[in-house]
């Protein structure tokens, strides 16, 4: 496998929520190890509230004002390695965002200025990034028809808005693309269309991170998958292996909950991120609890990792 272009090691993100007596510390990401490689689409899967979005915010330097981090996130650039967590705002603004890291935000329509046409905003983005790609080519990459350029954000359908967000993210031709829930609220055919677009971009040599709670969409296009639960990456590895033979009981539970698999929910609730139990966060709900030491540290077996001392089936 090729060398990773974005390498995250031991990432911890925490921040303060609330004021005075109601203040709590939220551990949104704990001990995350993740590699994004060129030419591969990695799906980051987890239910809403598990901390997935916070991970992308940490990588792009868009965390809320009260956040603190630990660990490293190293981006390989032609000019050497860049530590994203320590990079000053000027570096992030001028070198990283848009040029090295493209971000396709959740609910793209709300990230577009409502008073300007899509075309005007894309042209402005292109000019700002100095990329030199003609707008027409950008539209083609995002599979958007030409007439969308003249529309205002509120006139776009859900799918068009999402693809407009994708076009804006591609304006600087970044080698790494982070897509945060790009298919939320879209119809199945459109979900497949957008994920196919992202897979195509990965095939062109980019490293794509697809963040989603939609397991089926991930299963269709991902080369690698990372499963997140209560701020931890409980399992990572090549998608084909993980989806057919999951090691972590949570992954197995999620797969078993799909309509075509068994429709069996995982009993219980995920813990609050402000009150994580020590050790493995999944333990209270885990059917393998008896055979487990409760140690949540990730164990590596080849190109798969699992945060479980009692892998399913072993």
């Amino acid at each position, binding site marked *: 496998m090729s060398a990773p272009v974005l390498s995250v090691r031991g990432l*911890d*993100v*925490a*921040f*303060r*929520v*609330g004021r005075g007596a109601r203040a709590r*510390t*939220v*551990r*949104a990401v704990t001990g995350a190890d993740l590699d994004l490689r060129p030419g591969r689409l990695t799906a980051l899967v987890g239910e*809403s*509230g*598990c*901390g997935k*979005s*916070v991970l992308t915010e*940490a990588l792009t*330097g*868009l*965390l*809320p*004002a*009260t*956040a*603190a*981090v*630990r*660990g490293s996130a190293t981006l390989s650039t032609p000019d050497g390695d860049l530590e994203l*967590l*320590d990079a000053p*705002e000027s570096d992030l603004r001028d070198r990283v965002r848009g040029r090295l890291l493209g971000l396709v935000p959740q609910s793209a329509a709300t990230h577009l200025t409502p008073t300007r046409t899509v075309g005007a905003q894309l042209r402005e983005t292109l000019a700002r990034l100095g990329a030199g790609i003609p707008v027409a080519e950008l539209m083609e990459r995002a599979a958007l028809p030409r007439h969308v350029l003249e529309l205002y954000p509120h006139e776009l359908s859900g799918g068009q808005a999402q693809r407009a967000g994708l076009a804006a993210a591609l304006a600087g031709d970044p080698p790494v693309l982070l897509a945060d829930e790009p298919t939320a609220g879209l119809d199945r055919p459109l979900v497949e269309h957008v994920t196919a677009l992202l897979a195509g971009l990965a095939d062109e040599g980019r490293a794509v991170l697809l963040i989603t709670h939609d397991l089926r969409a991930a299963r269709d296009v991902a080369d690698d998958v990372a499963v997140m639960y209560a701020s931890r990456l409980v399992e990572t590895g090549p998608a084909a292996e993980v989806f057919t033979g999951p090691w972590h009981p949570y992954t197995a539970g999620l797969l078993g909950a799909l309509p075509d698999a068994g429709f069996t929910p995982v009993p219980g609730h995920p813990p609050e*991120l402000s*009150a*994580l139990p020590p050790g493995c966060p999944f333990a209270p709900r885990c059917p393998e609890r008896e055979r487990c030491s409760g140690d949540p540290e990730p164990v590596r077996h080849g190109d798969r990792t699992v945060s479980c001392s009692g892998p399913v089936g072993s």
Partner: protein
Amino acid sequence: MSEHTALAPRGTRPERTDGWRPAGRPRPGSPRGRRSPGRVRLVAGAAGLALLVLSALLVPRLGGLDQGLVDYTAIRLPPSPAHPFGTDSVGRDVLLRSFAGLWVSLQVAAACAVLSTVIGTLFGAVSGLLGGWSDRLLMRLVDAVNAVPHLLLGIVIVALYRGSVLAVIASIGLTHWTTVARVVRAEILSLRSRPFVDAAVSGGASRWRVLSRHLLPAVLPQAVLSAVLILPHAVWHETALSFLGLGLPPHLASLGTILGEGRQAVLLGSWWIVVFPSVLLAATTLCVAGIAAWWRDRSLPRRRSEQAL
């Protein structure tokens, strides 16, 4: 959960011993660290207003103000240690009178603000909820009331009922409610098509229940904010009426009355009779505006860090 995290506001030295470092970047518009400018405004405004109100209540009493007592030996004395704001054309101490007048002005303004807000909220809520042609009709009524100059309408009302405090309150209250009505109606319109109203209707709620339990409480912050913003207007409006001699009766002298009486004195060189009450008026308005600004900023959508992950 026993880890110590160095969650320090920007600008302070983080502890690097356990590897944690601050990573949040304040974005334009969001408060930087703990001391946000809005808080300064609130503290200054609230403190100032509290000071002014307390003074308005206590100073005349402590100073032994008697509005009816005239002292022709002390006419139009400039500011001195005995009379810090000087005396007016009949020898009364301007300091004591100003604070007494401030108290009257505040009471009248508060009554006007409450009246305007109540009328405006009910109007806007009913209009927004009814929708259709009733809404359009009611809004044309709002436009009509708005089209008439406030002061003119106010003058007409007080001229009909000279010397009546209620007339003064009515003249201001009946002209300033239109902004509140518009704001409340806009809020109601945006809320009434949201699924949570549908859910309430499906649960068997009547129109009145939806309005009183779900919609009005949601617009309450906006309505109260409007009330607070009306206060300075009401103070100025009443001041104008009293200045023209059309406002409150002489025994209920407000700041406006004092300013009106001081008109002549200014031409004779006694600037203190007009300047000091005006400064009090401006200070009150600024304090109220400061509190209102803090409230308005605070009711903006929640900061990202407090939203669900």
